């Protein structure tokens, strides 16, 4: 979605397409405690979860607007015992339904019921960076559980898609991770480097890998690709801190993506709750149509009128939309600034400094660095780079 068309003189607001992509974070409940979880660090403070009837109503309203891709995540979506009901209604409406899960709670009975309800796709992810990954690498309990779930996924005719979040403490094990994935019968593996929001932002100094680690991991991945051929397709997502141009986050906020938090809060991206000055509407008291087209939160970053320099006059603004608003806010304290990942940003040094610190501390023994595990007992407000003075 580009800026307002020049020919459109009467109305200079950007033209708004439908919310093609709907993400329902059905619950913040989760059996895991991942240090890189993007859920808000004060998630324990959010209100009660929507009831089944609310979710079903929202699905209908969004589908009517043209939503067609549906993500079901959380937390752990399997923690909702009405997941099958939600999937069945989504399928009836014509959504393409992706379940994003840790696999915990995915029994034979549930996967059969989900398949019957019309679930299209499952992405099995590895979540907990330390305990679970250690378990995984040492072939203990978790590996057995994941293998069992992976087998269930294949037996029910789904492609076996595995997502592993990478960071400083596991990126050196990419070779072992890929071997394990192969033994599990994975057809697609996404090696996704951590993105720094929520709990991951809190732990950024402990999670950012060094440039050498990253290069080694990419080399290992490439040689594995050569060996495995087309049997297993591997995506390696480089952390954007090491890039010179920002990611086109959500194809621009309010362009195609609509996320709903467990309590019904509507957000133009998963992490938007942190952005100051956004009045986030809630599906409990607003229709999806008015949320998408009329609300302040969804109009705030449409088009390019909000942009500052260097974005405003940048020839690439239609390509990356100034990058990520949350990253701009976390790093510079102002969500209207260019994403500092961009080397044209006057704040790019904040990113290079973080990368430089990662170079140094990659040699510091692990136990000397405190990681904060996602836990409902720990409720932490958002701290930006400026306010923390890190």
């Amino acid at each position, binding site marked *: 979605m580009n800026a307002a068309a020049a020919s459109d003189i009467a109305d200079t607001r950007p033209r708004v397409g439908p919310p093609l992509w709907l993400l329902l974070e059905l619950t913040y409940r989760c059996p895991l405690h991942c240090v890189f979880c993007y859920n808000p660090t004060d998630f324990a403070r959010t209100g009660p979860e929507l009831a089944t009837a609310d979710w079903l109503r929202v699905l209908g309203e969004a589908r009517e607007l*043209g939503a*067609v*891709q549906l993500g079901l995540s959380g937390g752990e979506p399997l923690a909702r015992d009405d997941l099958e009901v939600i999937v069945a209604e989504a399928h009836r409406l014509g959504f*393409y339904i992706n379940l994003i899960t840790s696999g915990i709670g995915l029994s034979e009975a549930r996967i059969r019921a989900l398949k019957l309800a019309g679930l*299209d*796709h499952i992405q099995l992810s590895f979540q907990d960076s330390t305990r679970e990954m250690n378990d995984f690498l040492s072939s203990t309990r978790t590996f057995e559980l994941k293998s069992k779930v992976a087998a269930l996924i294949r037996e029910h*005719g789904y492609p076996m898609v595995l997502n592993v979040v990478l960071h400083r403490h596991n990126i050196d094990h990419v070779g072992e991770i890929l071997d394990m994935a192969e033994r599990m019968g994975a057809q697609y593996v996404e090696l996704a480097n951590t993105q720094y929001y929520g709990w991951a932002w809190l732990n950024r100094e402990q999670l950012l890998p060094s440039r050498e680690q990253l290069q080694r991991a990419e080399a290992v991945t490439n040689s594995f690709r050569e060996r495995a051929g087309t049997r297993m397709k591997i995506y390696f997502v480089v952390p954007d801190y090491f890039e010179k141009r920002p990611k086109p986050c959500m194809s621009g906020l309010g362009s195609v993506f609509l996320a709903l938090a467990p309590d019904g809060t509507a957000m133009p991206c998963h992490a938007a709750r942190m952005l100051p000055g956004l009045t986030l509407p809630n599906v409990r008291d607003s229709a999806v149509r008015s949320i998408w087209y009329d609300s302040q939160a969804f109009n705030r970053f449409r088009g390019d009128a909000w942009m500052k320099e260097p974005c405003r006059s940048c020839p690439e603004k239609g390509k990356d939309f100034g990058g990520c608003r949350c990253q701009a806010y976390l790093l510079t304290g102002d969500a209207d600034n260019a994403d500092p990942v961009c080397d044209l940003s006057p704040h790019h040094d904040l990113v290079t400094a973080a990368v430089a610190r990662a170079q140094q501390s990659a040699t510091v023994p692990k136990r000397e660095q405190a990681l904060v595990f996602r836990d409902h007992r720990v409720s932490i407000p958002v701290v930006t780079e400026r306010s923390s003075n890190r």
Partner: protein
Amino acid sequence: MSIVSDTSRLVIAPGMRLQWEAAQDAHVLLYPEGMVKLNGSAGAIMSRCDGVRSVADVITDIEKSFGLSGIGADVHAFVALALERHWLELRE
């Protein structure tokens, strides 16, 4: 792709779903975490790839439905592209 002949039969690849989206006034191809909006001719071809009709049947059917002729090469070119992108699969 030389493996496709007029007698080949094709289906939408597993994990993909083709459907008409009124909101976009187009056929779309849905797959995990993605979507392709098809143009008119691509939609016409893909929606006829049901594993029963051969490529020749698809060509004849489209020519009849739209009052066209001589589209064989275009259909073959699109099918080759769709196979390469794993949108379609050959049925034995």
